[in-house]
């Protein structure tokens, strides 16, 4: 407890650093995933290829990826860029699939009807398909954000400071509270990101909040089973 009282500034500084490291991969991952997800959604062939590659990349343990990337990309091992790129790759791996699934989830009838009333392809994508894909994309974005915040901590093992510093430093000094603070801090940050995304979703997608007049048939079936 001693430690906690004396180190609130440190925790705060590290948290700020942690946030700073977390944002670029999430934002970049999101931006990159839109065209990739669209490609995967639009063309069967690219879908298989893209999602397989994404899945494989996601499979590689983070620390290993931090080490493999620099020689492949010709960047410095110590560089923050390394972490940013690695975490962006993970975010893309999650989000490209989400975007593809999300576009898939758009009712084809709505897509058809938008075409039928005279939407051109570009306008239809941004005015109809993308917003309607929103809820599923958001779900993916939440997963990506939370997992990015959690993965940033591994960066400490190659010298990139974040709340992960509290893990190694706490272990060396044998201070349980310090490690615990790192753990809780990271989870709180993740929660914060999640909350902000949920709020942003509410704000940007008001129709998802509108409660249906009649329960949808599937919802009714579910309740019927619980008798």
């Amino acid at each position, binding site marked *: 407890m001693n430690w906690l009282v004396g180190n609130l500034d440190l925790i705060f500084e590290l948290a700020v650093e942690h946030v700073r490291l977390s944002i670029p991969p999430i934002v970049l991952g999101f931006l990159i995933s839109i065209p990739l997800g669209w490609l995967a959604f639009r063309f069967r062939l690219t879908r298989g290829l893209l999602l397989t590659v994404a899945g494989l990349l996601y499979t590689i343990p983070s620390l290993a990826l931090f080490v493999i990337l620099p020689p492949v990309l010709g960047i410095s091992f110590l560089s923050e860029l390394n972490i940013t790129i690695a975490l962006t790759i993970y975010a893309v791996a999650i989000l490209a699939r989400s975007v593809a699934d999300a576009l898939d989830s758009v*009712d084809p*009838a*709505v897509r*058809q*009807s*938008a*075409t*039928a*009333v*005279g*939407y*051109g392809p570009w*306008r239809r994508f941004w005015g*109809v398909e993308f*917003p*309607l894909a*929103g809820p599923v994309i958001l779900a993916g974005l939440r997963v990506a954000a939370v997992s990015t915040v959690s993965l940033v901590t591994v960066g400490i093992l190659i010298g990139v400071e974040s709340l992960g510093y509290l893990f190694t430093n706490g272990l060396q000094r044998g201070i349980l509270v310090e490690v615990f603070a790192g753990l809780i801090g990271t989870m709180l940050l993740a929660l914060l990101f999640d909350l902000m995304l949920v709020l942003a979703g509410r704000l940007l*997608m008001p*129709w998802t909040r*509108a*409660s*249906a*007049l*009649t329960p949808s048939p599937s919802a009714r079936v579910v309740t019927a089973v619980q008798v």
Partner: protein
Amino acid sequence: MIEFRDVRKEFPDGTVAVEHFSLVIPSRETTVLVGSSGSGKTTLLRMINRMVDPSSGAVEIDGENVLEIDPVRLRRRIGYVMQNSGLLPHRKVVDNIATVPLLNGTPKRQARERALQLMDTVGLDRAMADRYPSQLSGGQQQRVGVARGLAVDPNILLMDEPFGAVDPIVRADLQQELRRLQQSLGKTVVFVTHDIDEAFLLGDQVVILQQGGRIAQRGTPAEILAAPADDFVATFIGADRGKRELRVREVGGRRVLVDGDGRPAGVLTETP
């Protein structure tokens, strides 16, 4: 007038949906395409607004081949109503109705004003204007769909099983509403259904389709009923099951018309 001239459609996967199809659809009347699943009704309907382009043959509107019209512009001129309404779930009712005028650049205020008027036309309470489609019942959604189809005051209204998904009672209501509307608006309506009763109810001209868009029979409902062209038509309209052969039976002092199976179809009100 809409004219199909020896139209054929083969989809990229090799399915031939429609072949040797020719038909004249007169203006200001309702033409109903009726046929079972896969007979090519939707495909034919969509050729009119270029959602599908024919592989060969031509579709003309007032003498102009549709292939010469830019599809986006063409579609904005033609109303289209489909099953499940096809409303944009993320737009309020009023914005859904105003979609096409807005796409065409009509000022927002004006478009919304017109949308509210259309809500009156199709019998929707203006109080629903700010709801999202999911907050409406199926029947109300279909009304919004019709209102949207009418928003640019099109000469042509295409309707693809617009009432297929609603409850029979609501459907009967919507059918009546459409008849009323059509009497006052006088659009060229092309209506697709696979319900022969609906076809007989709504169609000035009824076209019965077989697989591949082959026309089994074309005529007014009474013509078809009086003289089914062949066995297929007879089966389709239920004549072969005796469903259309009605006999009179006394029940409780009233003259009930029963079909071949003894199932009642109605009550006779007037002797010949």
